[in-house]
Protein backbone atom coordinates (compact mmCIF):
# COMPACT_ATOMS: atom_id res chain seq x y z
CA UNK A 1 0.00 0.00 0.00
CA UNK A 2 2.64 2.53 1.03
CA UNK A 3 4.89 1.27 -1.73
CA UNK A 4 2.21 1.84 -4.36
CA UNK A 5 1.49 5.35 -3.12
CA UNK A 6 5.16 6.31 -3.13
CA UNK A 7 5.75 4.66 -6.51
CA UNK A 8 2.81 6.63 -7.92
CA UNK A 9 4.50 9.82 -6.75
CA UNK A 10 7.42 9.09 -9.07
CA UNK A 11 9.94 7.43 -6.75
CA UNK A 12 11.14 3.89 -7.45
CA UNK A 13 10.30 1.47 -4.63
CA UNK A 14 11.22 -2.04 -3.63
CA UNK A 15 9.44 -4.07 -0.96
CA UNK A 16 11.50 -6.49 1.12
CA UNK A 17 9.00 -8.88 2.64
CA UNK A 18 8.53 -12.20 4.38
CA UNK A 19 5.29 -12.71 2.42
CA UNK A 20 6.05 -11.99 -1.24
CA UNK A 21 3.06 -14.06 -2.43
CA UNK A 22 0.75 -11.81 -0.42
CA UNK A 23 2.56 -8.65 -1.53
CA UNK A 24 2.05 -9.64 -5.16
CA UNK A 25 -1.72 -9.51 -4.67
CA UNK A 26 -1.29 -5.73 -4.37
CA UNK A 27 0.70 -5.61 -7.64
CA UNK A 28 3.72 -3.63 -6.39
CA UNK A 29 6.56 -2.57 -8.68
CA UNK A 30 9.36 -4.65 -7.16
CA UNK A 31 9.39 -7.35 -4.47
CA UNK A 32 12.28 -9.06 -2.71
CA UNK A 33 11.15 -12.19 -0.86
CA UNK A 34 12.88 -13.50 2.25
CA UNK A 35 12.00 -16.67 4.15
CA UNK A 36 12.58 -15.12 7.56
CA UNK A 37 10.37 -14.77 10.63
CA UNK A 38 8.34 -11.60 10.96
CA UNK A 39 10.13 -8.48 12.12
CA UNK A 40 13.40 -9.56 10.50
CA UNK A 41 13.18 -8.56 6.84
CA UNK A 42 16.95 -8.06 6.67
CA UNK A 43 18.04 -11.02 8.75
CA UNK A 44 19.37 -11.91 12.15
CA UNK A 45 20.58 -9.64 14.91
CA UNK A 46 24.18 -8.51 14.36
CA UNK A 47 24.58 -10.74 11.28
CA UNK A 48 26.04 -8.10 9.00
CA UNK A 49 26.70 -10.52 6.13
CA UNK A 50 23.09 -11.69 6.09
CA UNK A 51 21.74 -8.14 6.30
CA UNK A 52 24.02 -7.03 3.49
CA UNK A 53 22.97 -9.93 1.26
CA UNK A 54 19.32 -8.87 1.54
CA UNK A 55 20.22 -5.20 1.00
CA UNK A 56 22.16 -6.18 -2.13
CA UNK A 57 19.12 -8.04 -3.46
CA UNK A 58 17.02 -4.89 -3.03
CA UNK A 59 19.67 -2.83 -4.83
CA UNK A 60 19.92 -5.40 -7.61
CA UNK A 61 16.18 -5.33 -8.21
CA UNK A 62 16.13 -1.53 -8.21
CA UNK A 63 18.92 -1.56 -10.76
CA UNK A 64 17.82 -4.40 -13.04
CA UNK A 65 14.01 -4.59 -13.00
CA UNK A 66 12.47 -3.21 -16.15
CA UNK A 67 8.78 -3.82 -15.56
CA UNK A 68 6.26 -3.83 -12.70
CA UNK A 69 5.67 -6.88 -10.53
CA UNK A 70 9.33 -7.89 -10.67
CA UNK A 71 10.32 -10.34 -7.93
CA UNK A 72 13.58 -11.69 -6.56
CA UNK A 73 13.68 -14.28 -3.77
CA UNK A 74 16.76 -14.34 -1.55
CA UNK A 75 18.45 -17.73 -1.28
CA UNK A 76 19.06 -17.71 2.46
CA UNK A 77 17.63 -20.01 5.10
CA UNK A 78 16.92 -18.91 8.66
CA UNK A 79 19.52 -20.70 10.77
CA UNK A 80 17.17 -21.46 13.68
CA UNK A 81 14.64 -24.27 13.65
CA UNK A 82 11.17 -23.29 12.48
CA UNK A 83 9.36 -24.00 15.74
CA UNK A 84 11.73 -21.84 17.77
CA UNK A 85 11.75 -19.04 15.20
CA UNK A 86 7.95 -19.09 15.02
CA UNK A 87 7.69 -18.79 18.79
CA UNK A 88 10.34 -16.04 18.97
CA UNK A 89 8.66 -13.56 16.61
CA UNK A 90 5.32 -13.69 18.42
CA UNK A 91 4.39 -10.98 20.92
CA UNK A 92 4.20 -11.97 24.56
CA UNK A 93 0.43 -11.65 24.53
CA UNK A 94 -2.11 -11.86 21.73
CA UNK A 95 -2.52 -8.62 19.80
CA UNK A 96 -5.71 -6.65 20.52
CA UNK A 97 -7.34 -7.65 17.23
CA UNK A 98 -6.56 -11.34 17.76
CA UNK A 99 -7.86 -11.18 21.35
CA UNK A 100 -10.93 -9.29 20.11
CA UNK A 101 -11.66 -11.94 17.47
CA UNK A 102 -11.20 -14.78 19.98
CA UNK A 103 -13.68 -13.10 22.33
CA UNK A 104 -16.20 -12.62 19.52
CA UNK A 105 -15.92 -16.27 18.49
CA UNK A 106 -16.36 -17.43 22.08
CA UNK A 107 -19.42 -15.22 22.51
CA UNK A 108 -20.90 -16.55 19.29
CA UNK A 109 -20.29 -20.15 20.35
CA UNK A 110 -21.83 -19.43 23.76
CA UNK A 111 -24.95 -17.98 22.13
CA UNK A 112 -25.22 -20.99 19.83
CA UNK A 113 -24.85 -23.35 22.78
CA UNK A 114 -27.53 -21.47 24.74
CA UNK A 115 -29.91 -21.64 21.79
CA UNK A 116 -29.58 -25.43 21.48
Amino acid at each position, binding site marked *: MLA*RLIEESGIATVLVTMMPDLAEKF*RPARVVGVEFPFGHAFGMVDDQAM*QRTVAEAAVRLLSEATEPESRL*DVDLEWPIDQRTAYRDWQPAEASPIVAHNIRRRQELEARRAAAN
Partner: protein
Amino acid sequence: MAVDSFKYLPRSFRAGFEGMAVQEETTVWSPLAVPIEQATVALLTSAGLYLKESQPPFDVERERQEPTWGDPTYRVIPRTVRQEEVSAEHLHLNTRDFHIDFNVALPIRAFGQLEADGAIGGLADEHYGFMGFQDHALEGWREHAAPEVARRLKDAGVHALVLAPA
Protein backbone atom coordinates in the same frame (compact mmCIF):
# COMPACT_ATOMS: atom_id res chain seq x y z
CA MET B 1 15.02 -20.85 -3.87
CA ALA B 2 11.31 -19.98 -3.92
CA VAL B 3 10.33 -18.36 -0.65
CA ASP B 4 7.49 -19.98 1.33
CA SER B 5 5.49 -16.84 2.13
CA PHE B 6 3.53 -18.48 4.89
CA LYS B 7 6.20 -20.45 6.73
CA TYR B 8 6.04 -18.31 9.87
CA LEU B 9 2.38 -17.35 9.72
CA PRO B 10 -0.12 -18.83 12.21
CA ARG B 11 -1.92 -21.68 10.48
CA SER B 12 -5.30 -20.07 11.07
CA PHE B 13 -4.28 -17.11 8.87
CA ARG B 14 -2.71 -19.05 6.05
CA ALA B 15 -5.76 -20.16 4.09
CA GLY B 16 -7.22 -16.65 4.06
CA PHE B 17 -4.05 -15.08 2.73
CA GLU B 18 -3.36 -17.82 0.20
CA GLY B 19 -6.88 -17.59 -1.17
CA MET B 20 -7.05 -13.81 -1.25
CA ALA B 21 -7.96 -12.35 -4.63
CA VAL B 22 -5.70 -9.86 -6.36
CA GLN B 23 -6.46 -6.53 -4.70
CA GLU B 24 -5.46 -4.03 -7.37
CA GLU B 25 -6.56 -3.70 -10.98
CA THR B 26 -3.50 -1.84 -12.19
CA THR B 27 0.25 -2.02 -11.78
CA VAL B 28 2.44 0.88 -10.68
CA TRP B 29 5.85 1.76 -12.06
CA SER B 30 8.40 4.51 -11.72
CA PRO B 31 11.74 3.66 -13.33
CA LEU B 32 14.85 4.48 -11.35
CA ALA B 33 15.66 7.98 -12.61
CA VAL B 34 19.44 7.56 -12.51
CA PRO B 35 21.82 4.58 -12.53
CA ILE B 36 21.88 2.85 -9.15
CA GLU B 37 25.48 3.97 -8.61
CA GLN B 38 24.20 7.56 -8.63
CA ALA B 39 20.93 6.98 -6.80
CA THR B 40 20.10 8.26 -3.35
CA VAL B 41 18.25 5.59 -1.37
CA ALA B 42 16.00 5.94 1.67
CA LEU B 43 14.60 3.22 3.95
CA LEU B 44 11.20 2.65 5.54
CA THR B 45 10.15 0.07 8.10
CA SER B 46 6.77 -0.76 9.63
CA ALA B 47 8.34 -2.30 12.75
CA GLY B 48 7.19 0.56 14.99
CA LEU B 49 10.64 2.10 15.50
CA TYR B 50 10.99 5.57 17.02
CA LEU B 51 13.54 7.72 18.84
CA LYS B 52 12.80 7.22 22.51
CA GLU B 53 14.18 10.54 23.78
CA SER B 54 12.68 12.87 21.20
CA GLN B 55 9.61 11.23 19.67
CA PRO B 56 6.35 9.88 21.09
CA PRO B 57 5.89 6.12 20.87
CA PHE B 58 3.22 4.75 18.57
CA ASP B 59 -0.16 4.87 20.28
CA VAL B 60 -0.65 1.27 21.31
CA GLU B 61 -2.85 2.28 24.25
CA ARG B 62 -5.54 3.48 21.85
CA GLU B 63 -5.13 0.26 19.86
CA ARG B 64 -5.75 -1.72 23.04
CA GLN B 65 -9.01 0.20 23.47
CA GLU B 66 -9.92 0.05 19.77
CA PRO B 67 -8.54 -3.26 18.46
CA THR B 68 -9.32 -2.53 14.81
CA TRP B 69 -7.40 0.78 14.91
CA GLY B 70 -3.66 1.19 14.30
CA ASP B 71 -1.57 4.34 14.72
CA PRO B 72 -1.18 5.80 11.18
CA THR B 73 1.56 8.30 12.05
CA TYR B 74 5.25 7.93 11.22
CA ARG B 75 8.60 8.90 12.69
CA VAL B 76 11.64 10.34 10.93
CA ILE B 77 14.80 8.45 11.82
CA PRO B 78 18.14 10.06 10.89
CA ARG B 79 20.89 7.97 9.32
CA THR B 80 23.13 8.97 12.21
CA VAL B 81 20.86 7.24 14.74
CA ARG B 82 22.57 5.13 17.38
CA GLN B 83 21.20 1.83 18.67
CA GLU B 84 20.68 3.21 22.17
CA GLU B 85 18.41 5.95 20.79
CA VAL B 86 15.93 3.50 19.24
CA SER B 87 12.86 1.95 20.77
CA ALA B 88 9.84 0.18 19.29
CA GLU B 89 6.11 -0.17 19.91
CA HIS B 90 4.25 -2.87 18.03
CA LEU B 91 1.62 -5.17 19.54
CA HIS B 92 1.79 -7.75 16.74
CA LEU B 93 5.48 -8.60 17.02
CA ASN B 94 8.07 -9.41 19.62
CA THR B 95 10.11 -6.18 19.55
CA ARG B 96 13.04 -7.57 21.58
CA ASP B 97 15.48 -7.78 18.68
CA PHE B 98 14.84 -4.19 17.57
CA HIS B 99 16.30 -3.08 20.90
CA ILE B 100 19.45 -5.10 20.21
CA ASP B 101 20.00 -4.41 16.49
CA PHE B 102 17.37 -2.28 14.73
CA ASN B 103 19.14 -3.04 11.44
CA VAL B 104 17.15 -6.27 11.16
CA ALA B 105 14.22 -4.02 10.19
CA LEU B 106 15.87 -0.73 9.14
CA PRO B 107 19.25 -1.63 7.61
CA ILE B 108 21.04 1.70 7.83
CA ARG B 109 24.35 -0.06 8.45
CA ALA B 110 24.15 -2.32 5.37
CA PHE B 111 23.12 0.51 3.07
CA GLY B 112 25.85 2.69 4.52
CA GLN B 113 28.31 -0.03 3.50
CA LEU B 114 26.81 -0.14 0.01
CA GLU B 115 27.22 3.63 -0.19
CA ALA B 116 30.85 3.39 0.90
CA ASP B 117 31.47 0.67 -1.69
CA GLY B 118 29.91 2.74 -4.48
CA ALA B 119 27.08 0.27 -5.08
CA ILE B 120 24.55 3.07 -4.54
CA GLY B 121 25.03 6.79 -5.00
CA GLY B 122 24.17 7.63 -1.43
CA LEU B 123 22.11 6.83 1.63
CA ALA B 124 19.57 9.53 2.44
CA ASP B 125 19.88 11.57 5.61
CA GLU B 126 16.45 10.56 6.88
CA HIS B 127 14.49 7.31 7.01
CA TYR B 128 10.98 6.42 8.16
CA GLY B 129 9.42 4.38 10.94
CA PHE B 130 5.80 3.27 10.66
CA MET B 131 3.71 0.86 12.72
CA GLY B 132 2.35 -1.73 10.36
CA PHE B 133 -1.00 -2.70 11.82
CA GLN B 134 -3.64 -0.53 10.13
CA ASP B 135 -7.35 -0.81 9.60
CA HIS B 136 -8.46 -1.85 6.14
CA ALA B 137 -9.36 1.67 4.98
CA LEU B 138 -5.75 2.88 5.43
CA GLU B 139 -7.05 6.46 5.38
CA GLY B 140 -4.29 7.83 7.59
CA TRP B 141 -1.59 6.49 5.30
CA ARG B 142 -3.39 7.40 2.11
CA GLU B 143 -4.45 10.92 3.13
CA HIS B 144 -1.51 12.06 5.26
CA ALA B 145 1.53 9.84 5.76
CA ALA B 146 2.21 8.71 2.20
CA PRO B 147 1.89 12.19 0.60
CA GLU B 148 4.05 13.68 3.35
CA VAL B 149 6.76 11.06 2.99
CA ALA B 150 6.67 11.34 -0.80
CA ARG B 151 7.15 15.10 -0.49
CA ARG B 152 10.02 14.69 1.97
CA LEU B 153 11.70 12.16 -0.32
CA LYS B 154 11.44 14.47 -3.31
CA ASP B 155 12.67 17.47 -1.32
CA ALA B 156 15.68 15.39 -0.24
CA GLY B 157 16.46 14.30 -3.80
CA VAL B 158 15.79 10.63 -3.05
CA HIS B 159 15.53 8.36 -6.10
CA ALA B 160 14.51 5.08 -4.47
CA LEU B 161 12.77 3.86 -1.32
CA VAL B 162 13.33 0.43 0.21
CA LEU B 163 10.29 -0.59 2.26
CA ALA B 164 10.34 -3.42 4.76
CA PRO B 165 6.94 -4.48 6.09
CA ALA B 166 7.49 -5.99 9.51
